[in-house]
């Protein structure tokens, strides 16, 4: 076992789409209750990395360990996904189901919980995130921020050990970003282990325990946020942050 007590461990992940090599050897350790933010330009591999961890994309090479147990190959992918939640940029709620059913579908159909039990838990979660009055609505009637909060609740309803957040605020109108970030902050405060791909640099600086800068399919530099954002070592990181500052996003 090569886990060293970490919750998630990635060793040399590689992934290509056709001729394009998106991940070129990613190593990462994520400890229990740790919040890791992935930053980097579009196309640097952040989303692909998260999708690989959730086994939504098959790996070309490398190994993934969850609590010391290898999950990359020849395992029950559904069993892994029960333990690792993911939230997408575009929400991806099920439009033909009401909010409550969106949240209870997996607990009833995957975990085998009774409808009543799943609904009670879902209602409690929706209530906690200020969505109690939306439980009987269809997703299309909610604002983007509400939809994304429902998507987070839907993932949480499976009681995951690890949450992956893939640019969850990028599709939102600016005034709706804060409500979603507040939800993530609350999860962080409650000790949820998270790997977050984000363009929200001030959020990463406030919330992350560690920031990883991805460039060209590798983690080029990582460290505590104050170090990465104020004293980046790598010239590529410096360039990236300068562009971000110039764009007024830090």
């Amino acid at each position: 076992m090569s886990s060293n007590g970490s919750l998630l461990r990635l060793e040399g992940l590689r992934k290509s789409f056709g001729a394009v090599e998106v991940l070129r050897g990613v190593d990462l350790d994520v400890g229990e209750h740790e919040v890791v933010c992935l930053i980097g330009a579009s196309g640097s591999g952040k989303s692909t990395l998260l999708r690989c961890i959730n086994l939504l994309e098959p790996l070309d090479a490398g190994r993934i360990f969850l609590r010391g147990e290898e999950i990359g190959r020849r395992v029950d992918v559904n069993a892994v996904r029960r333990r690792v939640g993911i939230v997408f940029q575009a929400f991806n709620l099920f439009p033909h189901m009401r909010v409550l059913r969106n949240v209870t579908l997996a607990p009833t159909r995957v975990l085998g919980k009774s409808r009543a039990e799943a609904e009670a838990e879902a209602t409690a979660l929706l209530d906690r995130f200020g969505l109690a009055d939306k439980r009987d609505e269809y997703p299309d009637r909610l604002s983007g921020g509400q939809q994304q909060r429902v998507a987070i609740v839907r993932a949480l309803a499976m009681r995951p050990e690890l949450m992956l957040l893939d640019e969850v605020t990028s599709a939102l109108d600016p005034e709706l970003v804060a409500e979603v970030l507040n939800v993530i902050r609350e999860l962080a405060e409650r000790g949820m282990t998270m790997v977050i791909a984000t363009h929200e640099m001030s959020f990463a600086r406030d919330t992350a325990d560690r920031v990883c800068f991805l460039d060209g399919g590798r983690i080029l530099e990582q460290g505590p946020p104050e170090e990465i954002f104020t004293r980046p070592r790598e010239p590529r990181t410096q360039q990236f942050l300068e562009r971000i500052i110039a764009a007024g996003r830090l």
Partner: protein
Amino acid sequence: MSVDAETGPGNRGSRILGDLSGARDVGIAVTSTIVFLAIIVFAIVNSAGWPEVRHAFFDRRIFGDSFPEVARAFLLNVRIFCIAEVVILVVALGIAVLRGLPGPVLFPFRLLAVAYTDLFRGIPTILVIYILGFGAPALQLSGVPRSPFFWGVTALVLVYSAYVAEVYRAGIESVHPSQEAAARSLGLSRAKTLRFVIVPQAVRRVIPPLLNDFIGLQKDSALVALIGPIEAFRQSQIDVAATFNYTPYMATALLFVLLTIPLARLTDWLVARDRRRQSAGVAR
């Protein structure tokens, strides 16, 4: 989320006859329709052959005599397509799902599904009915009915399942891959993802073309007459032969139309209801 006035209820598609607002519009529509129909009726009634046609096709007495018989025989059409429709819904979905199976191991199933749809969309329905109706009973398979009714329904199921499978497939493919990713990411198996997430959305989207195919099926139930069963069309043929008058055909035509109208309105209503339920900007 922005509210688009165009997608609100009562606008697009939710009114069968288009958007008529206000008494003045309704008045114009009614007047225009009456004038239009009057011109057509006038043209037909004043044509040179009208007296003969009226006698041959619109004889009130013969209509009254043959209508009950034709209507009774029409119940057989209703039985044929009701049974066929239920079976088609299931068989076609199975074929569409087979065709969407991933991976090289399952290639034979995909091939089978493709071959099936090509074959039964390619052969004229009337030929399938003949071949099955006369060929299959001759095989003398034990435990399989030999009645022409059974084989007529089977032929319609085979032909229409090929069409409906393609309709389902279009619906399944129209559901964005991110929906599958979301369902799989929650730990749902591929089968459960299909069952709870993909197929329900796909079916909603294909209800109009699917019911359109069913209207075609209802009409084609008349073809089963060719291998024996006396349904409405065959009954009207018998009546025509007995009276030397074509009016019984008109009675049959009327019955088919009367059955199609409710189905078409049901389609409109289902589409409108779905749009209303899911559209943004309603009772926020």
